[in-house]
């Protein structure tokens, strides 16, 4: 459905935010995983027609997004990473206004849209409250409600769960899963779990490039036998970092668990780890870091 080819974006200050992104995304939930500053939001905004890439091609179905942004907008639902709202406007009124902006002209249609969505996002009881006074979770649900107006065929949600408590996050994801069956939903996040739980397909974006993409299970499968772990004292960490390709460390019961990437068994007390998506992600990042170090 959505095809990106060689999409590049260089900001006026010289920052190369996107560096030849080529990817195809089909129907269903698609997870775009990447650390902060990887270019996720730039990519989301570029797809959402908010910025024109310096080079490249974007197609959605039969729409050439760059030459006909209007056609894409007609069928786009977009929830930006960070958004505020107008002061002194209630949820109902603002959603109604958004429905108008999205092109629902009949008052009855708008009413059906607004009320259905308010119920669906569990905001019906607070519909007369100003959105500015909403909690983070309520605001995100409002955000998804506005993104769903008019049955879009492409929905982009950028870092939607930042700052939500686990319960709110859960509720939010249930909403997404419900709608994500027949249309393209791109979920950008830096939280591996989100992708693992929701997305049948995913990609890792780092340094403005797609580092890998595929189905999470498949990627985990592929990484089997390359990730090794051992538990050491904290003071040996530097030594380990020098000797191995360390992709992650974490503390466990006061000692440090070290994950390293290796094609073979590194010995030295390491044992093979049943790979998780997190390891896949982290090793992709480690690759990208190395690549950029070599380039530098």
């Amino acid at each position, binding site marked *: 459905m959505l095809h990106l080819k060689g999409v590049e974006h260089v900001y006026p200050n010289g920052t190369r935010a996107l560096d030849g992104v080529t990817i195809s995304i089909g129907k269903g939930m698609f997870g775009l995983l990447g650390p902060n500053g990887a270019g996720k939001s730039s990519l989301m905004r570029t797809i959402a027609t908010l*910025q024109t890439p310096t080079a490249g091609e974007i197609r959605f179905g039969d729409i050439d997004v760059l030459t006909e942004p209007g056609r894409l907008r007609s069928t786009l639902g977009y929830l930006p990473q960070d958004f505020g709202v107008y002061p002194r406007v209630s949820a109902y009124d603002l959603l109604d206004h958004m*429905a108008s902006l999205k092109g*629902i002209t009949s008052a009855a249609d708008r009413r059906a849209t607004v009320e259905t969505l308010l119920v669906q996002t569990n905001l019906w009881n607070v519909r007369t409250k100003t959105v500015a006074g909403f909690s983070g979770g309520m605001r995100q649900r409002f955000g998804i409600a506005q993104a769903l107006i008019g049955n879009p065929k492409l929905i982009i949600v950028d870092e939607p769960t930042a700052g939500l408590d686990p319960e709110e996050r859960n509720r939010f994801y249930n909403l997404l899963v419900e709608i994500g069956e027949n249309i393209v939903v791109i979920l950008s996040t830096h939280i591996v779990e989100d992708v693992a739980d929701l997305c049948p397909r995913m990609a890792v974006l780092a340094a403005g490039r797609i580092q890998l993409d595929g189905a999470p299970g498949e990627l985990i499968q592929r990484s089997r036998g390359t990730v090794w772990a051992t538990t050491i004292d904290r003071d040996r960490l530097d030594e380990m970092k020098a000797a191995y390709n360390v992709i992650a460390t974490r503390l466990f019961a006061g000692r440090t668990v070290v994950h390293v990437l290796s094609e073979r068994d590194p010995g030295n007390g390491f044992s093979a780890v049943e790979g998780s998506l997190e390891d896949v992600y982290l090793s992709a990042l480690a690759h990208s870091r190395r690549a950029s170090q070599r380039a530098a």
Partner: protein
Amino acid sequence: MFHTIARFELRYQVGNPVFWVATVMFFLLTFGATTAESIRLGSGGNIHTNAPTAVAQIQLIMSLFFMFVTTAFVGNVVVRDDETGFGSIIRSTRIGKLPYMFGRFSGAFLGAAVAFLAVPLAIWIGTFMPWVNPDFLGPNRVQDYLWGYFVLALPNLLITSAIFFAVACWTRSVTYSYLTVILFMFGYFALTAMLRKWPDLSVAAYFEPFGSIAYSLGIRYLTPIQANTQALELNALLLGNRLLWLAISAAIVVIAVWRFRFAERGVSKSDAKRQAAREQKLAAVTPVIVDRLPANTPERAAWHQLRTRTLFEMKLIFKSPAFWVLALVSALNLFSTLNLAGRFYDVPMWPRTFAIVDGVRGASVLITLLMAIYFAGEVVWRERERRFNEIVDATPLPNWAFLISKLAGVAGVLLVLCVAVVLLESILFQWARGLTDIEFGQWLAWFVAPSALYVIQISVLAIVVQAVSPNKFVGWGIMLLYLIAGTVFAGMGLNHPLLNYAEVTVPLSDMNGANYGGTEGWWLRTYWTMFAAILVVIGHLMWRRGTAVTLDGQWRTLPARLRGKPLAFLSSALLVTIVMAGFLYYNMNILNHFVSQEEEENRLARYEKEYSQYVGLPQPTLTDIKLDVDLQPSRRVARFDGSYRFVNATAVPIETLHVRMMIPLVPLRSVSVPGAKLVHEDKVNNHRIYQFDSPLQPGASGSLTFQSVYEKRGLATLPSDKRAYEFDAQPAPNGAYLTNLGFAPFLGMNRSGFLQGNNLRRKYGLEPELPTPQLEDEAALAWSYVGVDRVNTDITVTTDADQTLVVTGARVSDSVANGRRTARFVSPIPTLNFITIQSARYDVKTADADGVKLSVYYFPKHPMNIDRMLAVMRDSLDYYRKNFGPYQYSYARIIERPDYGGGANSAPGTVGYSEKAGFTMDFRDPQRLDFLAYVTAHELAHQYWFHQVMPADVQGAEVLTETLSQYSALMVMKHRYGPDQIRQFLKYEHDYYLQGRRKEAADEQPLARVNKQGYIHYNKGSIVMYLLQEHLGEERVNTVLRGLLDRYRFKPAPYPRSSDLVDGLLALARTPEERELILDQFYRITLYDLRAKQAMVRSLPDGRFETTITIHAAKAYADGKGNERQAEFNEHVNVGVFTAQPGDSGFGRENVVSMQRLPIRSGEQQIRIVTQRKPVYAGVDPYLTFIDRNLNDNVMPVSDSRGNDS
């Protein structure tokens, strides 16, 4: 702890950019306002730029405007901790509330106090600037600067700091604090405007927080020399004001701190209950739920989206508190504008539409500009500021809808507020003031339509400027530049209407509608609307949709995006604008003359340099004028055929004849002078010189014929000088007012019409103006004050049949034929050569006054004051004929004309009033001074004191024309209304005279030597003549005047002068004291100080009452610069006791318990008065006949004395 916090706060404020921006801004403002010769804030005239009063005044004014800065300082003291979230950290430390709040406040206040030092510093540095004229500077004295800073500025900073600190504490919002400042500002100005009208300003002074009334009371009558040299003193009134308001501000701070809570407020029980009920109600509604959401159809939704978006923008503005604050302020401002409109001597006017539209538009324009600028910034940047831009930008809203909806939103709000609400308020005001025939047509054409277009044009500008600005503040800055650009452009001579965006002026009149300038106005409005359309296209193309779009990028890609509809739209708007500009330019500059002020001054200067050599050449005297005038008001054409007869009244042969048009724009055609040939023709200045074939011998006469035409061609600009409107508007379709100054040539050459004002003359390299000849200059008695001859006139005018003609002279015939009216007017006696021709659809009301036919020619919708005018005319003629001598005509007319800036004037047998002067004054309140009666009597008196007796052109000439007309009118008023109205009137005259002295740029002259100084010959003249008739006797004074008339009536040179009047009055003096009194009034500048210092009453055993009044008296002589020296006071003065305060409403003869003229000497003295009734007030000179700088202390309440010991 307090010190630490205060010190920290001061350091914080000084490090804040606001501090530096404010300091620099106020430095530059003050520097500019004091060093620019055209501004000279606080000084001007003979008052030095760094005079003590100027230094104080500038600091006072700046300290008012500084409240915007103070608010920034104290406003964020509390709020900033809430905003940064640092508040909770601080409040959880051990710092107590008191040191925290007081420390913060003190630090912020000190910051403001330091920043304000920029103002005195700028004045001081300004005095060293090389371009400042050293004539305008005095010595710099440190104490003057300190006085202004510590007495005026610092307390004001503290007061504003306190108020806005309290507001910020209470609202915890900087925005609200700022809105309060704006509200406060308007409230303050409204309050002061009101307070200044109070009868007792010394009480009003306490209500005014910033000491400006108290301060100005202290300095208002200082003469220039006093203002320049005297160190200012902290008088009791000012000190009281300062202490009172310092106490109030201290109280405000204390209350603010006391009410301030560190913790946030919780929800009250009743609020909670109400909320629960609301929730229940909400939960009861069943939502409409669909299985599948309806699809959108954005391709067909454009108009719906635009409408929704526009209404949404409007709703957001309506919901913002700023809107309500501004709306309230504008409503108040409009009300006070309406209420004060057209008041003269505090007489209100009938709020007829034509008379108030200008004021209403002014008020609405002010608020339009403020709101458009403010909300354009808010609206254009709203999505970005609220971080909602990505969501909106990603919707299928068409690109053009972004700018258009913002524009429509702002314009829509302004249309509601600045057009609809203003209209409603104005009409309600008219209705409330008893004007029931509301003229909706006028409102529509003169206010609604022009204002609506203006609102749209200004909204476009404000929005587009924001759309092409990198941020909101730059956009606001650009709009502020636009605000001052108009003034700057005008100063640079760029006042062509095609250059000043959206500015259209149309002078309005009830009689003549918008016939003058109305068509041009609509052309210009259309032109600016098309121009606005160009701006819209640019704004649309520059609109930044999306997140990575820069101004620069938009600009670079603009040509690409221009293709298609934008290009079509832009090019058609551009084409229409250019074609219209060309058409208008052709009409205004080529068909008609567009003359900038500077060009006209240049012409006059060159004219003077070339022609002043001819001044004083012997020239013939005009004796007869015959005119045939073809007036076609509806076509705006007038043709004049004239013939002159002149005679050589000099003793020498005359070789050349100068024929000159005073207003050179009217072409003079086919002039012919039999027996002379044209030797010089100057078409630019319309000046011709003829040489007689053989010189015109003494006593010989000759003739001249001429033709001239008034014709409006195409569309013309209004003159840049409003005083020229009245001439430029002719011939008006209804209410034509043609004077021979405009259409007929003058013979001979004199200095009239030369450039006036010595500064202006210096600029063009001309000699300073010739001084008026001294009073003692006997040779000058040969020249009359007005310099025109007495002529016989015979004028025939043809006009439209439905119009009435009124022309100089007696009506000989009047007939209608072929749809045209022809009337002939012939002067019964030779009259001064002032010819007026008036034609309009008049109603006429007439009355008879012992053989004189009185008529008032008026616009049928202005009948309000006609009877009053007729009655006053009769009263005046009765008095004048009885006391002065015969009136020279068998008719006396009052004629109304459209209001194009002219006021009242007096032509032979005629008093002219413009619509606003007289005809629309509202006298329903009998307490008001009958100013109309006064002016009418004054103008009729000119039939004697100008038209009968013409003074010589020497100093003091106006004493015989204006002062005596003032006196005559005062006498008519005295007999009509009694002395109370006179007191009210004299009070105004005192004020105008004393303030006039202060503004004097040259030397103040004694009355007998007055030199075209209105405040002397009108205002002081009234007081002087009233005093003299009180002391010498009205009847005896009139005998002198009658003698003067008998001697000089209609006589040629030598002409009389003011000393003739003074000599006559001196002959009346019965005592040396009276003689000195007369000399004091006419030959010296005399100021008196009469004061009641104490008044006690006690009952006498016989049941009567004895009042003891302590009176202080002083007299001083001033020189022309205001230096005073004390003199001995020794006069008979009225001392009275009353049961009510003279000057209060309802005070009448019955309130006078006793009034006696008693000898009073310099210094203090006690006067005892025994009366039957018990007095409540007592005083000296209660009717204010002596010129006195403080009129409020002449009368005081009487207190009871205890016991019998006194």
